[in-house]
């Protein structure tokens, strides 16, 4: 029972907390993906590329303002906004003409955008790894139940619930959110009552892209910013969305929790192959609940 002793060691809790802060990022990115899937019905493979752009933009903004807390704060605002603008262009320029196409075509079209964006990023930022140093205020660790947790991870743990509440407010309390929810279920009916569905879709897509960019900006200090960071993330985000229920933002939250926890504990249990546990969790969920954990809008 060697793995049990691994599981119940003192490192477990801190591993779990670090895992949960990564979960925050997964949640932010996959909730955007889920919104786009639920309302626009686009399986957006380019979502990971938007996340990558968010990270690179955050890097550039921080370089531009010369580091420190203000530069970091600016990056957290400007990078997602830049990605949102790009999303607006993509939605109005391409997707708005293609909603009636088969999902397969939409998926491949977004994959072609992912390929194009990948190379454009290569042209703009080059192929080397980039990294962002945290401002001094974020360096160091807090103590939680006697275990060290880096301040930045703590910050992420606080950001997650804030974003969840923000999304809840947008989806449930704003007129746009209500229309978007209605459009997710029956878009013909929404346009039949005289609402311009096009703008609802544009709004949803832009919000989704903003979330992808925010995820990228938030992860920038924690990882090497590199080409290819989109490929690993997008599969995880899709799995989370599928596990939670297509188009269900709360499913995305639950899914990322399951994914993040199985990931961080899996590595403790079986260091070499721990990475398979989140995949197994998805398979298990879909075998027993083919429509995902929570209900799906599909």
């Amino acid at each position, binding site marked *: 029972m060697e793995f049990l002793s691994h599981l119940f060691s003192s490192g477990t809790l801190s591993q779990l907390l670090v895992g949960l802060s990564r979960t925050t990022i997964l949640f932010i990115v996959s909730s955007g993906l889920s919104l786009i899937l639920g309302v626009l019905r686009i399986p957006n493979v380019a979502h990971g590329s938007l996340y990558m752009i968010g990270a690179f933009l955050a890097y550039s903004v921080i370089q531009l303002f010369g580091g420190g807390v203000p530069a970091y704060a600016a990056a957290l605002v400007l990078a997602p906004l830049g990605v949102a603008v790009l999303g607006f262009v993509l939605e109005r320029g391409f997707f708005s003409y293609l909603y009636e196409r088969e999902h397969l075509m939409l998926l491949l079209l977004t994959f072609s955008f*992912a390929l*194009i964006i990948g190379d454009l990023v290569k*042209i703009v930022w080059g192929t080397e790894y980039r990294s962002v140093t945290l401002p001094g205020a974020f360096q160091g660790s807090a103590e939680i139940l006697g275990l060290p947790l880096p301040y930045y991870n703590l910050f992420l743990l606080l950001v997650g619930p804030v974003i969840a509440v923000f999304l809840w407010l947008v989806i449930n309390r704003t007129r746009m959110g209500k229309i978007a929810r209605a459009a997710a279920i029956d878009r013909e009916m929404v346009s039949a009552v005289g609402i311009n569905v096009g703008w609802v879709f544009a709004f949803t897509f832009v919000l989704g892209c903003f979330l992808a960019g925010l995820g990228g900006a938030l992860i920038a200090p924690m990882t090497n910013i590199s080409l290819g960071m989109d*490929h690993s993330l997008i599969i995880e985000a899709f*799995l989370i969305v599928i596990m939670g229920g297509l188009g269900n933002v709360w499913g995305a939250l639950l899914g990322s929790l399951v994914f993040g926890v199985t990931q961080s504990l899996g590595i403790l249990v079986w260091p070499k192959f721990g990475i*398979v546990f989140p995949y*197994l969790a998805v398979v298990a969920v879909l075998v027993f609940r*083919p429509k995902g954990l929570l209900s799906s809008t599909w």
Partner: protein
Amino acid sequence: MKKRTFVAVSVALLLLCALPLFLPRFYVYVASIVLLTGLLATSLNLAIGYGGIYQFHHTVFYGVGAYGTALMLTRAGAPAPVAMIAGPLAAAALSLVMGLICVRLSKLYFGMLQISLGSLVWVVVYRWYSFTGGDDGIHGVPLPDPLASAAGAYYCTLAVTVLCLFALRRIAGSPFGKTLQGVRDNPVRSEAIGVDVTLHRLVALVIAGFFGGVAGSLFIVVDGSAFPDMMFWTYSLEVLIMCLLGGMYTFWGPFVGSSTLVLLRVFVSVYTQYWGLILGTILSLVIIFLPDGLLGFLVRRFRGREADGA
């Protein structure tokens, strides 16, 4: 077979047989890759074009076929013919297991669960250094003499590919293939007239997986190596693009699409490293302007609409 078709096929085969006589070694290698990638795309098309099944992660079977053959040759020291059959059989077995798990799900869920199962296989191959060589893959697979030269590998690939394409063509044109298209176009009605929809889909998946595995084991013959990138999900989407580019609702479309892309990639990468940019642009143009693909477009243009699915 009509007389004209017969003559055309014979001439094409003769030309293909003569290729190594006048092409330099590198291009013989490229021609082998074109053939086996064509087989890979055609095998995928049995599931997606004929069956309407969202097989998003087809290259898993390609990879398993390749690894199966490579491992049989390096670890078990099996003779080449045995290894070349073992790889595809492993792929077919995996396809059966994955199919059983996924087959009752609806289209997009099917595709996504399939991607996740495929990624699981990829992760295992990528991490299992002691068995699969991990991210380094397996290189320098020992091959018997006739296969070791570029021309020998080419002739082997040509023979196997032609046989497999012939078999796939027969399957697509058989009553089973026709029923499969019925299932694709209207599963509810097919069920109502007594077709076992699930069984047909499952059989189509296993056949597609098997021939995908054959393509993988041919890759071992041609290249002598296997690496995890063969079964990374982006490559699966590239193979899907090949099907789409040539035309999914025609039998030869995927072959045309894959030959176009493989050759284009070889020649483009001489001039630029931005292959993704070019592929993405081509793909988006095809999706927006030619949703039936190149061959599908030509077929519709010259034969009229009744030739669909031929």
